[in-house]
């Protein structure tokens, strides 16, 4: 589904990614774990096309998309839920969902209806302004909005950041169910060990812009190992 080869990227002259190799198979759920500042968000932004790769290659379903704009990658089936959620604050919840569907031809109305069914918590909020929702509700909305474009691949950037634990559990359940139903491939970037362990099949550790090793989700329950990998205590 997704393949990155020797990917380099950065901000201006400051290099962040220093040769990322990543391969995600169809239907896989890959977690990427790392400290703040190790390049997690930069990696997702480069995969999505917001940051230009200075070297290396990004392939989606075998097609080289390294030079494509984000909107073209999205139309190829790459969905992106950014850190901080980036809800359109002045649009209603319903219009936020429509924004997710509007560029994707065909049954936009049905996609929005389907997303509302999958996220029942949004149903009573449809007329509310996006900016008036709580952090957790916004996270659900950001996910639902992304799904309105019917993506094959989902790039999730720290969905648990600043969100109350009850909604984190709900997100875990929703994501597992969605993955089954929609046959989604997911790349999740996180610092929350429980969350990443509950969902991922493989976990990659990112340090200083390179993937240093791969672990199993089970290994994340061992605090000593985790401390050694990433330097954050479980």
């Amino acid at each position, binding site marked *: 589904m997704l393949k990155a080869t020797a990917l380099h990227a950065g901000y201006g002259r400051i290099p962040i990614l220093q040769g990322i190799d990543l391969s995600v198979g169809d239907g896989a759920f890959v977690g990427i774990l790392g400290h703040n500042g190790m390049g997690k968000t930069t990696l997702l932004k480069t995969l*999505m096309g*917001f940051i230009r790769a200075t070297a290396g290659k990004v392939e989606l379903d075998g097609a080289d998309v390294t030079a494509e*704009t*984000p*909107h073209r990658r*999205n*139309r190829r089936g790459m969905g*992106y839920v*950014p850190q901080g959620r*980036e809800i*359109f*604050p*002045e*649009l209603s919840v319903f*219009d*936020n969902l*429509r*924004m*997710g569907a*509007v*560029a*994707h031809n065909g049954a936009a109305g049905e996609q929005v209806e389907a997303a509302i069914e999958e996220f029942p918590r949004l149903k009573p909020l449809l007329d509310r*302004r996006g900016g008036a929702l709580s952090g957790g509700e916004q996270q659900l909305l950001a996910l639902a*909005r*992304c799904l309105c*474009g019917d993506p094959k691949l989902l790039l999730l950037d720290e969905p648990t950041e600043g969100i109350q634990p009850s909604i984190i559990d709900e997100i875990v359940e929703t994501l597992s169910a969605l993955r089954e139903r929609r046959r989604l491939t997911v790349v999740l970037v996180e610092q929350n060990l429980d969350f990443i362990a509950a969902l991922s099949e493989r976990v990659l550790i990112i340090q200083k812009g390179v993937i240093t090793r791969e672990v199993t989700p089970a290994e994340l329950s061992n605090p000593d190992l985790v401390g050694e990998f990433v330097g954050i205590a479980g």
Partner: protein
Amino acid sequence: MDLVAVLALEVLFAIASLALISAGLAVIFGMMRVVNLAHGEFLMLGGYAAIIATNSGINIWISMLIVAPLVVAAIGVIVERLLIRFLYGRMVDTMLATWGLSLFFIGLVTTIFGNTTRGISSPLGGATVGDYKIGLYKLFIIGVTVVLLAAVYLVLRRTKLGLIARGTMQNANMASALGISPDKVYAITFAIGAGLSGLAGALLAPLTGIVPTIGIAYIAKSFITVIGGGAAILTGTISASTLFGTINQLVTFQSSPVFGEVALLVAAVILLRLLPQGITGRFFRRSM
């Protein structure tokens, strides 16, 4: 009583013409944050397009309502593709570039058509209210302005294009992550703004006559209206036009047009001192 009616009509006309000359700028500045210093020249080009089309035998209504907006929208697309799109997010650079563009258009039109006033006589003639004579064409402009603002509202609120425009205005990066091409949205928005300006310039041309430098007369007032209105494109334009138009016309009526203009400027200075974010920065904040 007749006097009141005539005065009311003049006030309404002043409001409508302010809203008319500001609408295109409100779209371009309000939605894209582009300070278009060539806005006055878009109005001027609309006027020339209408006059030339009329003089070459096209029906005056078609010239004003269809030819002029289309011509200026087309010019807008060219300008956006060749100039503006390289400068998004760089406000000072955009101002310099559009200032240059403004001088270019003035020079170009002067070279082609000469530095003389051209005009077409205003259609529709007049009507009598008691002892006073009013121009029916002014009534028509008021009507067109109302229809135009209603149309902008409906497009923004009810159409797919309006949804895309509102979303992209709030967060262009996120819109592109959802498959929307911001480039395309900006080009279309700019063309619509230019087309609105072309229409306004054409509608006012029969009343004012037209010279290559007429844009200068428009640009200050339209910027004052848009900035005074604040962030909400429609409510802002309407409320600021109403305030400034009323003040301008009432003072004009009491003294002279020169004092009317002065009063408008003074009102704008006071307004922006009290409400630096414009009217909609304080009131009607959730409006469009």
